[in-house]
């Protein structure tokens, strides 16, 4: 099953592609800057297609099977999305064209801003952030700039619950804040006492993931936000788990000040093997002018005969640009398509079914796996992937054994507050039959663990490769087809 690399497939002198000969008089290349042809592989188009087709077969994907990777919301990506973003009217527009020539694009972005505002309850949305973590950074920088503008530069402390996403602490420190972790209480909520003791004049804000990475909705969310606000802090909501709240609750309504939205999770744009994502950010009214831009606005309302005329603006106190141009437009087209197709009822249906699926699966899985926080969950749940009577078996072994059953493993070892965590997010697009099959596999594995633990500890048995030597990878660092000798 080992597929050669493109360099191993390369043959000197082979040509896969030719451009037309030059039709203009020749100009000499600039002296002193010449180089030999770049050492690229030399392949035929067939070589390339066969290589990458065969590589594709080594991947698990949503199109190929169940992908219950917790907190990643691996829902089905409708095929119409792919058609949408490839329409030449979208894909062939240059970002610096005169705005008169891209009114279609601007209209679409404006609508998407409005829709995300309506869905989330925030006052204003910027579509520019490139991914969830990028949106988080926006949020942290807004908190920073807001306090600076209010001459409260002593506010350097960001509170982060231990049930938050892993990026939150990194984002905070990247923004120059001091991170203070908050413990969870026995129901998985933020510990209110710990919160209270941190509500002082150094408090910049709280980064709250709700539902949190245990899949639990914080029952005290209103009180928590109130406490932070009273202390002069801002509350950032990590929107990575928004799928559970569509049509159920608008985070802006309960007082969140800032939130990013992962279009590649909640709004079905494909994950692409790790990107491109898209992480628009919404804020409350008082923070609207801090957003990164450009943002689409209506320059002329139009009338019965003429549609509105759209343009771009940079908010007055903006934290600045987060990237070139206007965000991941191709991804925005897909999210627009998805929201337009769902409408208010369809969106709520997503939230309801995501939560229904998670609870149904949790109910079945918890018979054989310890569920540390046993209450109604939202879109995902976390069980322990180990048993006292089989100490040799770990969460990782269960994960790898699931591969043999045709499933992608859940998220392993996260959140850190659950011992040997297995974090399962089924999403709303999976059927009861698939959930039943997964639950049956989990049950079978629990039995195998007792009867033949090697089935787990040596798993996977049917994947393209067996377990990998990660220590060697980090020690012998080979990061390209040939290891530079200097390493």
């Amino acid at each position, binding site marked *: 099953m080992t597929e050669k690399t493109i360099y191993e497939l390369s043959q000197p002198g082979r040509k896969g592609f030719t451009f037309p000969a030059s039709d203009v008089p020749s100009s000499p290349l600039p002296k002193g800057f010449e180089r030999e042809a770049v050492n690229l592989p030399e392949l035929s188009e067939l070589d390339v297609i066969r290589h990458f087709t065969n590589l594709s077969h080594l991947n698990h994907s949503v199109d190929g099977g169940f992908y219950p990777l917790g907190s990643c919301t691996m829902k089905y990506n409708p095929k119409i999305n792919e058609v949408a973003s490839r329409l030449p009217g979208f894909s062939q527009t240059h970002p610096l064209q005169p705005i008169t020539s891209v009114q279609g694009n601007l209209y679409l972005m404006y609508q998407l801003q409005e829709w995300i505002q309506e869905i989330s309850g925030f006052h204003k949305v910027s579509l520019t952030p490139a991914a969830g973590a990028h949106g988080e950074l926006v949020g942290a920088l807004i908190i920073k700039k807001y306090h600076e503008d209010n001459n409260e530069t002593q506010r350097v402390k960001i509170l982060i619950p231990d049930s938050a996403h892993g990026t939150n602490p990194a984002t905070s420190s990247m923004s120059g804040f001091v991170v203070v972790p908050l413990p969870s209480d026995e129901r998985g909520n933020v510990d209110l006492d710990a919160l209270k003791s941190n509500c002082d004049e150094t408090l910049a804000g709280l980064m709250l993931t709700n539902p949190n990475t245990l899949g639990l909705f914080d029952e005290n969310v209103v009180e928590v936000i109130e406490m932070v606000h009273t202390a002069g802090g801002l509350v950032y909501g990590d929107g990575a788990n928004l799928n559970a709240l569509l049509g159920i609750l608008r985070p802006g309504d309960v007082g969140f000040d800032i939130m990013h939205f992962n279009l590649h999770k909640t709004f079905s744009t494909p994950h692409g093997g790790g990107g491109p994502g898209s992480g628009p950010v919404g804020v409350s009214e008082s923070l609207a002018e801090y957003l990164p831009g450009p943002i689409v606005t209506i320059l002329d309302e139009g009338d019965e005969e003429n549609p509105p005329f759209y343009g771009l603006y940079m908010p007055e106190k903006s934290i600045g640009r987060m990237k070139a141009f206007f965000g991941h437009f191709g991804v925005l087209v897909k999210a627009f398509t998805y929201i337009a197709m769902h409408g208010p009822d369809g969106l709520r249906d997503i939230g309801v079914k995501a939560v229904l699926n998670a609870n149904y699966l949790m109910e079945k899985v918890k018979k054989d796996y310890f569920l540390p926080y046993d209450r109604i969950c939202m879109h995902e749940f976390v069980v322990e992937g180990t048993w006292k009577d089989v100490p040799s078996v770990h969460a990782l072994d269960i994960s790898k054994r699931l591969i043999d059953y045709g499933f992608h493993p859940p998220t392993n070892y996260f959140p850190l507050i659950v011992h040997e965590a297995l974090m399962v997010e089924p999403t709303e697009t999976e059927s009861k039959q698939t959930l039943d099959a997964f639950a049956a596999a989990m049950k079978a594995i629990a039995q195998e663990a007792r009867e033949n633990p090697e089935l787990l500890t040596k798993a996977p048995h049917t994947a393209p490769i*067996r377990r990998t030597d990660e220590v060697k990878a980090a020690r012998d660092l080979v990061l390209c087809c040939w290891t530079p000798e200097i390493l």
Partner: protein
Amino acid sequence: MYTPHTPQEIEEMLRVIGLKSVEDLFDSVPQEYRFPDLNLPQGLTELEIAAELNEIAAANATSDEFISFLGAGAYNHYIPAAVDAILSRGEFYTAYTPYQPEVSQGTLQAIFEYQTLMTELTGMDISNASHYDGATATAEAANLAYHHFRGKRKKMLVARSVNPEYRETIRTYMTGLENVIVHGDEPLNPGEDQISKLLGMIDKETAIVIVQYPDFFGRIIDYTKVVEKAHEFGALVAFVFNPTALGILKPPGAFDADIAVGDGQPLGIPLSFGGPYLGIFTVKEQFVRKLAGRLVGETVDEDGKRAYVLTLTAREQHIRREKSTSNICTNQGLMALAAAVYLSVLGKSGFKQVANLCYQKAHYAAEQLSRLPGFEMAFPDAPFFHEFVLKIPMSVKEINDRLEEYWILGGYDLSQTYPEMENQMLVAVTEKMSKDDIDDFVAALAEVTHD
């Protein structure tokens, strides 16, 4: 719409959970905020949205209908059909970050090959698995420099000839770091030279010097002295490069750059109104443990078979949490795949050819345009790649408005970001343009300026 549940199944599932209705699932959500009415248009069927999308898209003018001379950071190159044939495979685009190597070798090997291609292209030692775009990759370069010096060097020098949006992005990123000063990119005084100015500013406070190659004005500049002086003072140097240009130009690695970043959009990624693009991030070997973003490494599996994994993950934010230097947790996976397929299809000869065609056609265009009465090259002595600055006899906006009648999108109006460059147009020419297209542009400009 895409939820498969039948009423009967919902009943069964609720019974297993022990609830009466799906509403009961949300008891922990504050009642007063629960189940808001969303003021959105009712959902559309696929037939309806397909028609609506066609209408919206038709409200744009595209680079297929117009001859476009816009570049300035995004370029209209031909994308071989093979690229999208691979990108549209569900196995690639509906997979996620390859956390589980046993079922992700496809993505992992593709990125490993991407990393190799990027090191070959740039002449650098190490490439990561990609960043969001050229602007954020450039900002991450500054970020790397900041952390490399443990926050002790606060001065980030950036040439004014670096893409203005990249410079803005660096500034945004730097606001999170204490007392960092980004400068060097103030307007030049009359007669002042960018290189001399930078040379004059480099000192022992300088963390990094960031230059663009070819620069934002398309010029091919020899930064040898900048690199020498920076290294003399222990500072790092980052090159912001255009990948197509490296098909014929000496790479950043050959200039002894410490970091080379750029936007990979020209490598098989559609213009798509500005994104998603691809942030290329490459470094010298010594920074391998300091660069942000994913890295794919080669190893073996338990049977000794070659295999690929995400490696050096200990650098990343989900392990190091607040101690990590960047919060980036995805790469631009599918776009990196696009670049890998594009470079594999073009190969050694095709890539050189496309770079050369861009160069030749741009030079022909410059030659012809600068002959028009009232037109001249802004930098007549500077070598350039496929973009050049043209001084024109009226405002760029005015000319471009008139060019639309000729189905031409004129070049970028530099006065938008360089107030000192009134009536100067940045013209980009790629291999997609024929001599006829260029001649049409010249003729159209002659007409609209003659009126």
